């Protein structure tokens, strides 16, 4: 009973390490696979800057990025003129409520140009896409995500109907294909409007939140990134001949770089969470040491007897070490099974209920942790009590009350 409680410490420690590692790896795979579907030709431009001194991390925070207003439609036009660019689309976004009769839904609206449908390979299946005319005239038209269309209109056909977003009336011209939940954002809850309309009527701004560019070929990506940087520096009046990225007020990233950044961020997060879980493991180990010390005291007479009938110091040491390792190893196995089944359940729930294409992973490191660390904890925290037991003189041990 007491051993079982002690074991619980190890069980929880190992299980939480494994859950953290498995879920962390799963999240990383999910985001990366999502980024990879965007295609290797894709380049992103966002406000902000890199700081190479921070290992390629961001120099500006999200809040700071929001206040940078230098990225504009003029930049987009200049980028589109580059010969290596196949197409590009701007992006502004915000959130609000969409109202149709009595229905009222929270939405994310995104201001785009027609190229967005092409580059993301995501089209309307009903009605039409937003076109060049809509952008030029800042028309109040919208294409709805699949889920928003369902929630607002139900069985009704939304095309041609009018919805209200932020006190402005929008005519629904199309409904997007179902895309599902990816990277923690449900695309089916997006509403696309022309970028000019969003700037003027919904946000009251004239800068952009991002530009997405598709290069003509994969080999064009890297030279194009450099070209875009030069264009933007000139447009933004940044004197930066040595190409110091921390001086820029924008970030240009290829899909590969973005994937690496995600890997880095989720990696740090996983390591951080795992180390918290590892503390639970150490606490469990101290529990083991405690229970072994109690056990040595309680079984002093037994130790004396064993010595009297011929056990050497080594035999006693081994007996107690094996005992503590058995407890931790058993705890490790139970924790491993528990952690894996929790992660598996989580992945099933995420896949089935939330429609996320989550892939269940058992990280190799977690397996090593489950068994290796548990054994080491048993050894490290068992060695002191075991040595104490082995050193007892047989006659003193036998006399012990």
């Amino acid at each position: 009973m007491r051993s079982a409680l002690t074991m619980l410490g190890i069980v929880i420690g190992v299980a939480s390490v494994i859950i953290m590692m498995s879920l962390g790896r799963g999240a990383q795979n999910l985001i990366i696979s999502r980024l990879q579907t965007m295609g290797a030709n894709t380049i992103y431009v966002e406000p902000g800057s890199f700081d190479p001194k921070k290992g390629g991390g961001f120099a500006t925070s999200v809040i700071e990025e929001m206040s940078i207003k230098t990225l504009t439609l003029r930049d987009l036009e200049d980028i589109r003129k580059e010969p290596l660019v196949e197409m590009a689309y701007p992006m502004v976004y915000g959130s609000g409520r969409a109202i149709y009769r009595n229905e009222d839904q929270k939405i994310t609206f995104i201001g785009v140009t027609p190229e967005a449908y092409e580059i993301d390979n995501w089209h309307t299946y009903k009605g039409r896409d937003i076109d060049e005319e809509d952008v030029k005239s800042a028309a109040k038209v919208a294409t709805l995500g699949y889920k928003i269309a369902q929630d607002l209109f139900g069985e009704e056909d939304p095309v041609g109907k009018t919805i209200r977003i932020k006190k402005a009336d929008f005519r629904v011209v199309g409904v997007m294909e179902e895309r599902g939940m990816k990277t923690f954002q449900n695309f089916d809850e997006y509403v696309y409007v022309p970028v000019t309309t969003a700037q003027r009527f919904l946000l009251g701004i004239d800068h952009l939140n991002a530009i997405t560019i598709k290069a003509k070929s994969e080999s064009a990506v890297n030279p194009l990134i450099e070209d875009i940087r030069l264009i933007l520096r000139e447009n933004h009046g940044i004197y930066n001949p040595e190409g110091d990225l921390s001086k820029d007020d924008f970030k240009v990233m290829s899909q590969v770089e973005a994937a690496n950044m995600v890997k880095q961020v989720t990696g740090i997060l996983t390591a951080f969470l795992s180390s918290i879980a590892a503390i639970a493991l150490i606490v469990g180990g101290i529990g083991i040491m405690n229970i072994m010390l109690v056990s040595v005291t309680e079984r002093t007479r037994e130790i004396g007897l064993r010595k009297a009938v011929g056990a050497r110091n080594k035999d006693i040491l081994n007996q107690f070490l094996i005992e503590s390792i058995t407890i931790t190893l058993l705890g490790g196995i139970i924790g491993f099974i528990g952690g894996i089944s929790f992660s598996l359940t989580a992945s099933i729930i995420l896949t089935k209920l939330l429609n996320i294409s989550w892939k269940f992973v058992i990280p190799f490191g977690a397996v090593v942790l489950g068994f290796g660390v548990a054994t080491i904890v048993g050894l490290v925290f068992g060695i002191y009590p075991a040595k104490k037991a082995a050193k007892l003189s047989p006659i003193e041990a036998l006399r012990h009350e």
Partner: protein
Amino acid sequence: MKMIELKNLTKEYCDDEVKTIALDGVSFNIREGEFLAITGPSGSGKSTLMHIMGFLDRPSAGIYKFKGQSIEDLDDDQLAYIRNEEMGFVFQFFNLLPRTSVFDNVKLPLIYTKISEEEKRERVLKAIESVGLIHRVKHYSNQLSGGEQQRVAIARAIVNNPAVIFADEPTGNLDSKSGQQIMEILQNLNDQGHTIILVTHEVYTAEMAKRLIRLKDGKVVSDEPIKDRKIAKNGLIK
């Protein structure tokens, strides 16, 4: 043949600057096949003497030779080996492992030897049979009566077929009938050739041995054969 040789054996305990002399120059020999009782008032050093003879403790000074080997020349592991091979112990409070079967209790000394599992099993069953507890083999030690527990302890002491059996007040914690059974077993073992060293403060138990040594204040005050030896089987204990 001399099995145990003691010469001027001394044992002192130093505790908080108070020096206690437990044994003060004890000298005698024990031959193979003897049945020796050591007796004396409490604090006379009889238990200490037995512990040293049983390699559970070391003397402070003097010579102790077991089968010609001096204790000084042996390290702790060698002492453990000799205890395992040559000695068996029976204690006043039985010292059985609780929640452990009779079989496993008796087997305990054999787990530190290298003989085959099959032979271990045979020896354990033989030892249990010789103390008349074969019907209790699978019982837990704490389900047995005191007398039965002490018989299990004797089985454990003889399972490795030792040259000498040390019995420290083996009847001290038992009723007279159970004590008599224990003494009967010890006498039988002596008849089979085992050397037996018995520590007791009861005169009638000591008189079932063949030789009696009296200790007082760590010194031997008398050492003589028992003339009118009592046989436990005859039911002389009252």
